């Protein structure tokens, strides 16, 4: 499933896609325009996921849309995006990107997904599709990700309408049993999974007594959710033999190692960019190499899944 070339030390091959390093920009973080995505790649990301794109454009929620708690962020962007047709302009500009470009999409119905699948099939720039069924603050989306039946059905619909591109399903931790959802995704035809999206949360402004976020609920990200995300990755990879992208609270090389040891093939990085800036990719790469060398590992593959061995 995974091939590693040892020369680069950090490069990984997942779903037949070559990632120069396992540090991928997470969905919804900066991924709205081609020039900015290119800059993220130039900054050292091993791959990028776009903002989640729907069939139609969405304005998202009014401000305030983000709260910084120090140990994590709570956001309720509400999936703002220009809609697939307009986003194609950006994707056209991204042809020839040096790292895999993963298009994140969401849909409110299987009909929408069908239409989107057909359009995306023709997009050369797109290396893989990440299906977001897990945004906790947009009604109609999180509900999909909580139901094994819906997840399976949505994934199957996408699979049937998408030619030649692997499907990654991004899972929500806001469920009783993430493994059963993961299994449903795989049964529907998912080639890989991303765990996790944000944890459903809330912040109250005590001066006014009102929910602080205009969207009332938000999603918790950053360090606060790292132990939850690790548990999810571990639970899934304990049962299923499917590539899992670890996501949630990655800020340092140590975090990356934890995720790989828990069974992830690579990680996605979001909130850390607020604290460490875009240089987070290059810096973690260097720290990662140093760690592997120090410990005498010849590749990330040697580290992967270590926590499962007893």
């Amino acid at each position, binding site marked *: 499933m995974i091939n590693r070339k040892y020369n680069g030390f950090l490069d990984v091959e997942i779903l037949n896609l070559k990632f120069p390093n396992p540090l991928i920009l997470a969905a*919804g973080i900066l991924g709205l*325009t081609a*020039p900015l995505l290119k800059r993220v790649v130039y900054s050292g990301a091993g791959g990028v996921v776009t903002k989640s794109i729907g069939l139609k454009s969405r*304005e998202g929620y009014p*401000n305030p849309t983000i709260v910084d708690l120090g140990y994590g962020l709570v956001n309720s962007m509400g999936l703002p995006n220009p*809609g697939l047709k307009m986003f194609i302009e950006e994707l056209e500009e991204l042809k020839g990107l040096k790292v895999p470009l993963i298009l994140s999409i969401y849909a409110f119905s299987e009909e929408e997904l069908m239409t989107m699948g057909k359009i995306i099939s023709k997009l050369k720039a797109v290396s893989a599709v990440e299906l977001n069924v897990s945004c906790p603050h947009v009604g109609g989306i999180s509900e999909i990700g909580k139901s094994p039946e819906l997840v399976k059905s949505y994934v199957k619909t996408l699979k049937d309408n998408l030619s030649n591109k692997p499907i990654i399903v991004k899972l929500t931790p806001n469920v009783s049993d993430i493994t059963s959802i993961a299994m449903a995704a795989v049964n529907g035809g998912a080639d890989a999974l991303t765990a996790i999206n944000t944890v459903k949360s809330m912040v109250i402004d005590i001066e006014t007594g009102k929910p602080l976020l205009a969207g009332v609920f938000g999603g918790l990200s950053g360090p606060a959710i790292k132990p939850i995300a690790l548990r999810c990755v571990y639970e899934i990879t304990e049962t299923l033999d499917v590539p899992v992208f670890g996501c949630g609270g990655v800020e340092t090389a140590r975090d990356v190692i934890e995720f790989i040891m828990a069974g992830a093939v690579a990680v996605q990085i979001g909130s850390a960019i*607020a604290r460490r800036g875009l240089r987070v990719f290059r810096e973690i790469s260097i720290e990662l190499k140093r760690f592997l060398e120090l410990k005498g590992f010849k590749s990330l593959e040697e580290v992967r899944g270590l926590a499962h061995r007893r």
Partner: protein
Amino acid sequence: MKNVRRPVEVEAVVEENFKIKTFLFKDKLCFKARPGQFLMVWIVGVDEIPLSISRIGDLCSVTVAKVGEATEAMHRLKVGDRFYIRGPYGNGFREGGGYVAIVAGGIGLAALLPLVERLNASNCKIDVFIGFRSKSDAFWVDKLTGFINGKLTISTDDGSLGVKGLISEVFRGYVKNFKPRYDMIYTCGPPAMIRQVFQDCKKMNYKVQASLEAYMRCGIGICGSCCLGPYRVCSDGPVFSNNQLTKMSELGIYKRGPDGLKIPI
């Protein structure tokens, strides 16, 4: 932590003109702000919007042009009312010495005033070019007169005050004719104006620092709402210099709405 929303109380309100008001407040973090930095200002129940810090000191301020719902709500604030701020955000202007020009359009002056004060204090020679739509839109002309030791040029679209015409054109005419040896051009205003000013400055080999605007949500560089070329206005900017400005082909041509769609300017 600057990212935590904190309430501030309106200490005074100054009506600058029929549509611009300045709100003074005390805040420790703003006290240490650099000219050109901005705040995310939350008017509870309405919206959270970016506003430049228009005064840095024991009393700080934001200066707000009434253009829509949030700015109208701000204009209703009275002394003793509260609003929330987080920040200061962004890089702010780099201050240098020597001979500089300020080219401002309308409310763009808000971001530039603290800079002018600082540059003046450090004995720069400062020429100011400032454009308004009309005489009734003008503000801070007296303030500027007090601060600068160079030339003050005012223009209005209708000629009701100063020269008639766009300030970018007035500026272009001046530098072409007199070829002043500016060490830096600082500019803030409508994007079309900035585009023009920057292009003219390139021809003259001037160094430019332009403070730009874009739709903002997070203010901390992760949501991508505020992108302009390969940059985030909130955290790579809002002040950009020549190399960066060159990479923003869309500057003054289109901006992006909350949904990321391109809106022609």
